[in-house]
């Protein structure tokens, strides 16, 4: 019996060694990404690149998005991984300071890669002159709206040049507090960004300047809407762990400010019948008086090369493809807005099945101005932590808006003063 077991184990070991050797024929590119199994565009990008390069196999290492920051801390300096996807600039800055990334400047110069297609967004990935990553997706916040609910209430659709006052009026007009079938004028996801980041759209305010009095305007709007029953309260949304995708998809929310990435999910899930919402559109985010319509804030998603990767050249080849026009068209075909901006790419975006066909929605694809959500500086991580803590204080009504903002000013002032 024991002898048989030993023989079986030895045979298993032998087989695994042989198959491992056989698998070495193809070149493997290992990419660390979040939600790799549920993100549509990752599969499309892999398929498109492998079709053009049959000798390369792309392997995604999946990390759940809420554990991203902490999980990545263990993956730096591990030569098993070639490419790290970049979720936010503060993390990228931390990785850069940990010397975990390969600067791309030489590769860009040798390949003559044209950076102008990024319309300056690539600058956010540059630290001390080192281009440590390139963006392949550039999301920005737009206003999703449910056309059927607007028609039923007889309210005009949101236009691309609304002010926040007009937005608030529409939200109140669309609200129906009937407990049997509640209709909410709008929905705010629990993030800090969906609540108040609109303040950076004027190109002057940032979230790092230590002065947060401008946020009071947006907090007041949300609290007024909550009190009027026009949106689900922060407490309820937090406690129930509501996710914006399901809430809007359920069809009883008339408007929702959210990132452009939601377009792909919406189109797919409506086509599959999972979502009840049928006719929807997007409009440019409302702006404050004096700010140019079509201004909003956004974020970049990019790719970077692991400093200790064993295949840096192959990794660069993939990055150049992904972030350039070729990869941009593949990304656009999945409904996600690539970082590379050109007329051709915009055509592909608008042609995606399920994308709203009205001119207003199409016009949103060429925004006037996109400010980055939060630039990467040494203090970004610490300041973000403080802002998020005070945000939860304000949104749960533990403190008044004035007290919360005062705390923000005080605490961030201390960080900046160091």
């Amino acid at each position, binding site marked *: 019996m024991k002898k048989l077991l030993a023989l079986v184990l030895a045979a298993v070991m032998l087989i695994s060694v042989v198959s491992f050797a056989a698998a070495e024929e193809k070149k493997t590119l290992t990419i660390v990404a979040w939600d790799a199994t549920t993100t549509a565009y990752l599969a499309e990008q892999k398929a498109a690149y492998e079709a053009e390069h049959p000798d390369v196999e792309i392997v995604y290492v999946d990390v759940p998005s809420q554990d991203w920051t902490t999980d990545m801390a263990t993956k730096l300096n591990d030569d098993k991984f070639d490419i790290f996807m970049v979720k936010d600039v503060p993390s990228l800055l931390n990785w850069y300071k940990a010397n975990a990334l390969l600067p791309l400047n030489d590769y860009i110069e040798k390949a003559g890669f044209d950076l102008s297609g990024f319309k300056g967004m690539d600058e956010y990935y540059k630290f001390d002159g080192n281009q440590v990553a390139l963006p392949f997706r550039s999301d920005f916040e737009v206003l999703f709206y449910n056309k059927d609910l607007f028609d039923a209430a007889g309210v005009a659709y949101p236009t691309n040049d609304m002010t926040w006052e007009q937005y608030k009026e529409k939200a109140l007009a669309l609200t129906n507090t009937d407990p049997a079938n509640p209709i909410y004028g709008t929905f705010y996801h629990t993030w800090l960004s969906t609540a108040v980041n609109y303040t950076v759209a004027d190109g002057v305010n940032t979230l790092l300047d230590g002065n947060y009095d401008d946020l009071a305007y947006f907090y007041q709007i949300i609290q007024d809407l909550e009190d009027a029953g026009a949106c689900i309260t922060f407490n309820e949304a937090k406690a129930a762990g509501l996710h914006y995708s399901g809430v809007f998809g359920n069809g009883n929310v008339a408007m929702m400010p959210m990132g452009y990435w939601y377009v792909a999910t919406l189109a797919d899930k409506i086509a599959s019948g999972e979502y009840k919402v049928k006719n929807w559109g997007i409009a440019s985010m409302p702006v404050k008086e004096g700010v140019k319509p079509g201004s909003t804030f956004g974020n970049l998603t990019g790719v970077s090369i692991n400093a200790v990767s064993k295949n840096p050249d192959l990794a660069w080849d993939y990055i150049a493809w992904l972030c350039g026009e070729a990869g941009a068209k593949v990304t656009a075909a999945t409904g996600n807005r690539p970082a590379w901006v050109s007329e051709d790419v915009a055509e592909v975006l608008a042609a995606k099945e399920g994308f709203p066909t009205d001119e207003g929605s199409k016009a949103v694809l060429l925004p006037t101005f996109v400010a980055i959500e939060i630039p990467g500086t040494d203090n970004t991580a610490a300041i973000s932590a403080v802002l998020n803590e005070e945000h939860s*204080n304000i949104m749960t009504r533990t403190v008044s808006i004035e007290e919360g903002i005062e705390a923000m000013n005080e605490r961030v002032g201390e960080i900046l003063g160091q």
Partner: protein
Amino acid sequence: MGRLERKNTLIAYSFLAPNFIGFAVFTLVPVVLSIAMSFTEWNGGSLANMHWTGLKNYADIFKSAKVGSTMAESGFFAGLGYFFNKVDLGIALKNTVFYTLVTVPLSLVCSIMLAMALNKAVKGAVGFRTIFFFPYVASMVAICVCWNFMLMKNGPVNQLLMNLGINFNKSWTADSTMAMWAIILVSVWRNMGYYMVIYLAALQGVPRELYEAATVDGANKWQQFRNVTLPQLRPTTFFASIMLIISCFKIYDTVAIMTAGGPGRSTKMLVLYIFQEAFEQYKYGTASAIAMVLLVVVLTVTVIQFSNEKKFAND
């Protein structure tokens, strides 16, 4: 040393070796490195990024400059007030100590009561013991998610309270006072099963003759409990309280899942603060310094308890 003695010694060491090697590699060495790391600043990348900073980390986490200047300007207690209300470390210490001071006695009381109730051979006692012990072995994440739902604004707990006349119209984890009590509730609920089992075993060890003698002397149930049972349970209580205090200072998973330290910083605990500094801010040196503070606090408490052992242990 004779041959036999040496052989026995070698055998003893070889039995101890695996456990000790594991302890040395996974606990001892990291702890020592962590003590050293608390005097450096490191962002987790290559080791070349580790810089010796001496006591700077401790000055930072205690905000000694600001606390000192507040004390100089407005007095000692003003400085302390600033530390415990505005400085992250002070808030974390305050929250953790409050949590420990409430959870430990509550857990002990509940477990003793449960053990007393289930000590008799009542019908279904074994079933009840299993039910009460179950939370301790269940998945912490599942427990916390379920309790989050129960403590929602219109959840079962609030509805029960409304029926009792208390109108608490808020989700527990969204209120800065009740969030702490939510965590205490879940912890006590989880602990009482485990310590109930320990007390059950201890109760079995109380000699019957003592109860009989007490009855003969005319003691009623309550007097028997106070004067026979409790004193006999002192070693167990001593053990349980030490284990509880140490585990309460280390609370992390409940807080991380239920409140993430919120709202604001009202449930920010020491280990959560360490985690945030290390893995969200990439400041391993600072995190190690906080861990040292935690070590000193727990060590002090444990040493005080052990030095009082003569009082608690049976002679």
